[in-house]
């Protein structure tokens, strides 16, 4: 078979591998919009906080559970770490992948449940969406994040199902990880701004 000037055989198109998979690019663009969404919310909260008459948190409002949420924050961060190690195990086709992914999902589920319990307690104490600026901002910021955690939790469950069926590929696993790392990464910022 004759070769071209570069020594490549004719008839075989010289295709370049994509810089990054489509799924990863799509998820990165989505996460970028999400970062802007949360940045806008945090900015509004910071301005609202600085504008509050009588200091922050406003007097007469229930206190937010700082210590309990610190534990919950640790659980979510640990979930991110477990997912990181699950990816490392996945690259080596190690049987530990399943266990580590399940641990990440379990810790994410714990975070959601714990936060749900926290919300029930706060509502009982009188902190609602309409009780004041603190309640409004709290449920908007933390609620938006909670929705993302639930979405990420469902995505991780889907990847676990694919892994159990033996047809999980890195093009599915990477975007799921990007989303979960975003969910994990944005939480400490929210905790620092809202709770501390």
């Amino acid at each position, binding site marked *: *078979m*004759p070769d071209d000037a570069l020594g*490549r*055989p*004719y*008839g*075989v198109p010289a295709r*370049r*591998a994509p*810089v*990054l998979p489509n799924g990863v690019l799509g998820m*990165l663009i989505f996460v*970028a919009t999400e*970062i*802007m969404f949360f*940045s*806008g919310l*945090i*900015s509004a909260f*910071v*301005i609202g*906080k*600085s*504008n509050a008459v009588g200091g922050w948190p406003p007097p007469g409002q229930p206190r937010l559970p700082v210590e309990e949420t610190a534990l919950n924050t640790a659980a979510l961060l640990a979930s991110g770490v477990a997912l990181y190690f699950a990816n490392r195990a996945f690259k080596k086709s190690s049987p530990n992948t399943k266990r580590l992914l399940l641990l990440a999902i379990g810790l994410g589920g714990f975070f959601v449940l714990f936060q749900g319990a926290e919300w029930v307690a706060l509502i009982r104490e009188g902190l609602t969406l309409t009780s004041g600026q603190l309640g409004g901002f709290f449920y908007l910021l933390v609620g938006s994040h909670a929705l993302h955690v639930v979405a990420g939790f469902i995505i991780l469950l889907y990847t676990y199902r694919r892994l159990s069926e033996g047809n999980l590929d890195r093009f599915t696993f990477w975007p799921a990880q990007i989303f979960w790392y975003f969910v994990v990464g944005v939480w400490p910022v929210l905790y620092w701004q809202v709770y501390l």
Partner: protein
Amino acid sequence: MRLTRLCASALLLWAAWAADLAYACPSCASPLEENRQAFVDTTIFLTLVPLMMMGGFIWWVRRRIRAMDEAPEIPVPESLLRDAGRFSKGG
């Protein structure tokens, strides 16, 4: 053509100037120093975040392309080189 460009530039400059006078945000004219500072801080933050994201992405893609260029070329598998039949170019 030159006049149109000049008018468009003047209009753009005027729009930029007018936005400064509008005080659309209640925080801009707030008497509270802390509130004005928070407004300035968040404006800087919201300006820098997208720039940093785009800059970071471009930097990462450039690095990845360079790494791919430097990587040794993968040889074409034999299965692709064999005669594809009637319509094969090689035949």
